[in-house]
């Protein structure tokens, strides 16, 4: 029944040597940040505070982000394998929203039925699509009519909870194709009475469909690899809405699944605050869909980022006291993640301001800057490279540069989210699009085009202004050029339909 080495899981434990090496590398990296910081804040440097403060924020935010990754590396924990006992009652929920294609369910439902551990499968149908009713009958899936149930996915789950009775509930998105041993992988962990939910990897089968799909998938490699494994070590793996397994009692103790833009994040926050533990199993037991076009990707990011900011501003301050030590830190770091948009935009704008108006944030020697950055840059690259061994799949190892490029291109979305969250503007909850949206999206990349135009113009201006002899000008020209180049992949993604001429990309 149990395979000796299930696919998608390359390592079972972390050796002492690996721990020591990781600690040493992270320690040296911390020293490198300190080394740079001491130099950066040298009182000898002439600074213009109005610009120096944002520049320092941008610079150190990016360093802080890598140190978060290092922090999780120190906590890496892979749980032991636990085969489940007999007689656990399990309900499997999958939801349907209006507009979702029936073909998707035609693939998803039989896979759910085919999961080997005894269970009952439910389709929480809010689509109003008669085809789905037929499909449910065909695969002998019990259909719960949720046509008039509000609260999006979470609302349907809570509605269904009242009509079912399984001890354990697997909530899985309909774009996911489950493996037969899904439940065998997770159920054993519920033997610990304190465990409220067990999370597995979210993986994809369409990541080679487009640049955006590949990039968006790359962004998740580290998250479902080192970061969640690290969270596991600190006792705070999160709920991921796509395929999480809950204990009914746990969900009931917090009044059911949370209804929120980031319903999964809020649900795990409440469960942890209620004292439940959680387990992350770094195994791929289902594969789903990742956004293939820039429109769907940006919509997904807008939803997540706005939700996370809302949690940070309104929910976290109240609930944080009920969390345990490391959990506090983990949740704080997760909910502040999207400030990265602010850091990126500062880095995009400052060179332009400098070249056009000669307003500098700080005067420091270029060579000194390079020299003091070397230790950080070197340790950053070494740690990134070294930690690739903990990727769940060999194919995920590498530099994930596409993911980085798309992240750098997401800054307007993250800024918008911050604005929405601060002004209390509501973003409607729509499931992330499961279908590729064709067409070009010039409006979505207007900010990027603006940055490219401004950067190029500022370079031209800088080359002819009286400033051209200033030592910092060359560096700023370099940054402006680099910034424009970094925006190009995102712009190209928005116009990719033009190059494909209606052919389906493989």
């Amino acid at each position, binding site marked *: 029944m149990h395979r000796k080495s299930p696919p998608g899981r390359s390592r079972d434990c972390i050796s002492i040597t690996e721990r020591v090496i990781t600690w040493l590398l992270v320690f040296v990296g911390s020293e490198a940040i*300190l080394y740079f910081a001491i130099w950066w804040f040298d009182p000898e440097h002439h600074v213009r505070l109005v610009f120096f403060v944002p520049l320092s924020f941008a610079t150190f935010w990016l360093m802080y982000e890598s140190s978060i990754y290092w922090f999780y590396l120190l906590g890496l924990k892979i749980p032991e394998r636990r085969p489940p006992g007999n007689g656990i009652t399990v309900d499997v929920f999958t939801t349907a929203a209006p507009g979702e294609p029936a073909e998707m369910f035609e693939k998803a439902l039989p896979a759910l039925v085919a999961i080997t551990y005894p269970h009952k499968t439910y389709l929480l149908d809010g689509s109003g699509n008669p085809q789905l009713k037929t499909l449910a009958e065909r695969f002998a899936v019990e259909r719960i009519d949720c046509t008039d149930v509000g609260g999006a996915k979470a609302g349907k789950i809570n509605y269904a909870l009242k009509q079912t009775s399984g001890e354990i509930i697997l909530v899985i998105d309909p774009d996911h194709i489950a493996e037969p041993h899904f439940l065998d992988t997770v159920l054993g962990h519920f033997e610990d009475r304190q465990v409220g939910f067990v999370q597995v990897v979210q993986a994809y089968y369409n990541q080679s469909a487009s640049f955006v799909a590949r990039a968006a998938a790359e962004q998740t490699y580290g998250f479902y690899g080192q970061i969640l494994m690290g969270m596991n070590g600190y006792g705070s793996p999160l709920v991921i809405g796509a395929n999480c397994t809950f204990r009914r009692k746990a969900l009931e103790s917090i009044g059911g699944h949370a209804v929120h833009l980031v319903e999964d994040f809020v649900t795990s926050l409440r469960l942890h605050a209620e004292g439940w533990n959680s387990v992350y199993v770094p195994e791929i037991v289902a594969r789903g869909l990742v956004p293939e076009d820039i429109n769907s990707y940006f919509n997904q990011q807008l939803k997540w980022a706005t939700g996370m900011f809302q949690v940070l501003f309104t929910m976290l301050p109240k609930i944080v006291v009920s969390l345990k030590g490391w959990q506090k830190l983990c949740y704080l770091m997760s909910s502040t993640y999207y400030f990265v948009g602010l850091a990126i935009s500062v880095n995009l704008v400052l060179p332009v301001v400098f070249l056009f108006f000669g307003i500098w944030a700080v005067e420091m020697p270029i060579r000194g800057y390079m020299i003091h950055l070397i230790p950080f840059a070197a340790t950053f690259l070494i740690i990134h490279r070294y930690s690739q061994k903990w990727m769940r799949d060999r194919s995920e190892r590498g530099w994930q540069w596409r993911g980085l490029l798309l992240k750098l291109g997401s800054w307007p979305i993250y800024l918008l989210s911050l604005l929405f969250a601060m002004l209390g503007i509501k973003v409607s909850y729509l499931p992330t699009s499961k279908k590729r949206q064709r067409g070009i999206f010039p409006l979505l990349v207007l900010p990027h085009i603006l940055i490219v135009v401004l950067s190029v113009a500022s370079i031209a201006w800088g080359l002819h202004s009286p400033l051209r002899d200033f030592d910092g000008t060359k560096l700023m020209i370099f940054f402006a050029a680099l910034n424009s180049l970094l925006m190009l992949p995102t712009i190209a993604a928005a116009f990719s339909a033009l190059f494909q001429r209606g052919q389906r990309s493989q």
Partner: protein
Amino acid sequence: MTSTKNIIKPLLPVFYIGLLLLSFPLFDAAFTSVLSYLRVAAGRIGTSVGVVPKNNAIMLGIYKPEVPYSMTRVDSLENMLGGKFDIFSFYQTWGEREEDNFQLDLMRAIDRHGAIALITWEPWITEFARNKKPGIQNNRTDLQEVADGVYDDYVRSWARDAVVFGKPFYLRFAHEMNNPQYPWSAAAKEKPGEFIDAWRHVWKLFKDEGAKNVLWVWSPKGTMAHELYPGGEYVDWVGTGVFNYGSYGEEVWQSFEYIYEPIYRSALRYEKPIMIAEIGCSPLGGNQAQWFADALKGLQTRYHETDAIVFYNNPADQTLAGSVIDWSVDKNAEILDMLKREVEYGIFKKN
């Protein structure tokens, strides 16, 4: 077991940060030595002659009033030290007299000796006929006039001769432009833009004439007068002067580090090789030889970006107060012994 674990766990971050701070000097030292190793390695690969000294050594120079008119005494000094000077420094003013022209013969004499000239080129304007009108008392150098091209003929002919000479040399133009005692500085202080314009104008005239062999030394007095910096493109070296007046007049004895530290720190930002174009220590008020020994030690241990040091070996320097200061080092046996050792240890370029 569990209870000790519970006490230790919250302390872990504190312990980590403590260790981080405690071992920081170690990290700093380790990385600095890696850097200096790389610098030496880069130096071995070779930098262009005359611009930066090879093998991370310091270039040694001297100003002696009779050099380069007579080289005999310098020969015997060099024999005694067992090394050769890299730089000979002399001073020239602007003007229309014969001695104000480019001194081709002197430059060739220095070149034949195997050294590089450092010309401190002072834009006095009193030696130009147009400024010798009776009744005009103002001898201030109008930098706007320099920038506007009033003295272009003189500058161009000087530059043309420099092209004829053809070998690299240091040109320390309008030094101490922030020292109000020089006629070209007061104007500079009021309108830094005028000084920068004048510098760039002169620089462009040289470029026009094809004088690529000139290494421009921008050399203010004391800490760097940043508002007077003409820009990285127009400057090859940053220069300064370091003088300890000892107990002359109202002065008090000052260590080399005390004088040089702020100057050096302010000069680093330009990322140019730094030259102490004049260094002198008074024989009165302290141990002159020890002062120079400290200076050379400082250059090797702390002030790594300093690539040249030029002794201001003037036995009779007229001060504005009217007294005469003896800055010479070649009469003090202790100093000469110390220099000899340094030449042997190889901090200076050897022959």
